[in-house]
């Protein structure tokens, strides 16, 4: 770690000689006395005077240094960890506010399932966020990125190791209602681009959490295929199925035209690995997340940027301390002869 000190305003250091002012023999706060020689020599007093000078000197010096804005310059640290770079791409569309089925849905009467889902279930978005949050917690060695999308992608967090940052992003996803449109193609494209400028240091996963698909245009498909291949990204799709949504497990002739199935088919046609998880209840979702969690455990090397750390407040605190000492000295000073 290069602990180099730098200054944002180095020209302020020109004021540093001001710190020598307290060493000047002439002081304004002294009392005149006719003849010092007949006063007793006082060692304690001499030490107090020296301490006063030192305090004043340090107070001025600290203030000047604080004004110059000292700090440790931005550094890069190479870290080695296990795990993957996971970019979570969450659908932020309004359909995600709908409720999921409860885990015991299979025991319910099919006639009331839909009603039950509307009244009892957890909103899809919330269930997904809870699980993702747990997922992020359980995988401290992975690095995560977070992106939401609806009509266009919203960059929430770049790929980083700061899990608290990601967690905050995931929590913030719950604020307000969902947005109207969904453009999976654009979102995926920009998720792929998030990996573009990064050195390949471990397996890469895009975790698409969505409840709907789209039919993609031909050039978008081409872009996605090439992008995933170029960046060597594994795609996982957690498909939050609505009660009457398309079912990946029962693909029939008619269902091929549904946008979810179309997207699924496109993903299957990719040269890069792809797994789809169809989740209808929170339990399915949890299983999917666990499965993804078990997939990736490879060591990765990565460079972490340590931002510039500003030390000026420590200097200000020091200055404040010494100023307090000076004030205490002042309070005890003899102001006039009685």
């Amino acid at each position, binding site marked *: 770690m290069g602990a180099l000190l730098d200054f944002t305003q180095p020209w302020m250091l020109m004021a540093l000689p001001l710190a020598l002012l307290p060493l000047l*023999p002439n*002081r304004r*706060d*002294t*009392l*005149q*006395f*006719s*003849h*010092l*020689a*007949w*006063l*007793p020599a*006082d060692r*304690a*007093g*001499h030490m*107090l*005077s020296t301490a*006063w000078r030192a305090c004043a000197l340090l107070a001025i010096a600290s203030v000047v240094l604080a004004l110059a804005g000292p700090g440790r310059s931005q550094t890069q640290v190479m870290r080695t960890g296990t795990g993957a770079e996971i970019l979570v791409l969450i659908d932020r569309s309004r359909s995600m506010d709908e409720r999921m089925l409860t885990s015991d849905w299979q025991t319910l009467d099919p006639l009331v399932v839909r009603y039950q889902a509307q009244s009892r279930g957890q909103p899809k978005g919330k269930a997904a966020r809870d699980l993702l949050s747990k997922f992020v917690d359980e995988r401290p060695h992975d690095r995560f990125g977070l992106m939401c999308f609806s009509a266009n992608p919203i960059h929430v967090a770049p790929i980083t190791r700061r899990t608290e940052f990601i967690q905050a992003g995931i929590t913030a996803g719950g604020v307000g209602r969902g947005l109207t449109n969904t453009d999976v193609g654009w979102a995926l494209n920009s998720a792929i681009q998030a990996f573009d400028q990064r050195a390949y240091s471990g397996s890469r996963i895009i975790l698409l959490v969505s409840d709907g698909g789209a039919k993609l245009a031909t050039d978008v498909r081409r872009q996605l295929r090439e992008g995933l291949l170029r960046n060597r990204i594994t795609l996982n799709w957690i498909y939050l199925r609505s009660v009457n949504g398309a079912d990946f497990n029962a693909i029939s002739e008619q269902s091929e035209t549904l946008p979810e199935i179309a997207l699924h088919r496109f993903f299957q046609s990719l040269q890069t690995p792809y797994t789809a998880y169809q989740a209808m209840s929170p339990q399915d979702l949890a299983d999917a997340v666990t499965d993804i969690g078990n997939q990736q455990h490879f060591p990765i090397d990565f460079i972490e940027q340590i931002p510039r750390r500003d030390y000026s407040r420590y200097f200000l605190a020091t200055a404040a301390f010494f100023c307090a000492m000076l004030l205490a*000295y002042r309070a*005890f*000073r*003899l102001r*006039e*002869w*009685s």
Partner: protein
Amino acid sequence: MATAQAFHYRMPRRVAGQRPGSHRGSSLGAGQEFVSHANLYDRPDPRRLDLRASVRSLSREWLVRVSRQRAGVTVQAVVDVSASMAFGAHTPKLQVAADFVEALAFSTFRAGDALGMVAFDATERADLFVPAMLNRGMGEVMSRLIRQCRTAPGSVAGLEQAVARLAPRSGLVFLMSDFHWSLDRLGPVVDALAHNFVVPMIIWDQAEIEPPAQDAIAALDDSESGTSRTLWIRPLLRARWRDNVANRKRELDRFFAARSMRPFYVTGAFGADAMSEYFFEVNA
């Protein structure tokens, strides 16, 4: 301006001099103090014929009474106007000196003595010199000179120069200073004034001899040398401060006693009664 307090003073020994005054003189003349009888032809002053003594005398000659006349002296105020004299918690010591000079002028005029003033710091201060004269208004002039003078660091050298001006004469000398200097060089200076009756007036301020009552940190500047020192005033230091003052006082007493002088201490303000008492004791 408050009226000056007069005090009574008499020279403790006979003074030479022809000018009539109020001190016991050594010269013969018109006075109450009988010395002897003399032949009328030796001292032809028939007003003082002593008939009884003439009748009684065996040589059958006319005798006249001879007496000594009372004489006036020259009083000199020697004032230290060094920077340390400007110190004072409430009134500067120079003000005390000025008050005394005013009282002195009043008293000397009443006694019929001439008063002059010599001031010094590191050298003699010619601008504050007042020649000895009998003048009722001079006291005010002198005290104003002292009150308004600018001070500078002083030394015994200044006193040496000032004394050189006075030494050959005889009279009464009031030496006003705080004596904040080494006594080594003071000996010859005081000895040079042997023809005079010297009253060493040691003017100190209350703040000099008594340490501050409250515990505090005192950052002090010497008014003459400019050096500074910080004292932590606490009971231990207060005791040592008082010891130092007592030691200095003892040292000064011993120094002046060796020259048969008694120092007159003034602290804070000049008291005319104390000065009168001083002279009563000296003359007793």
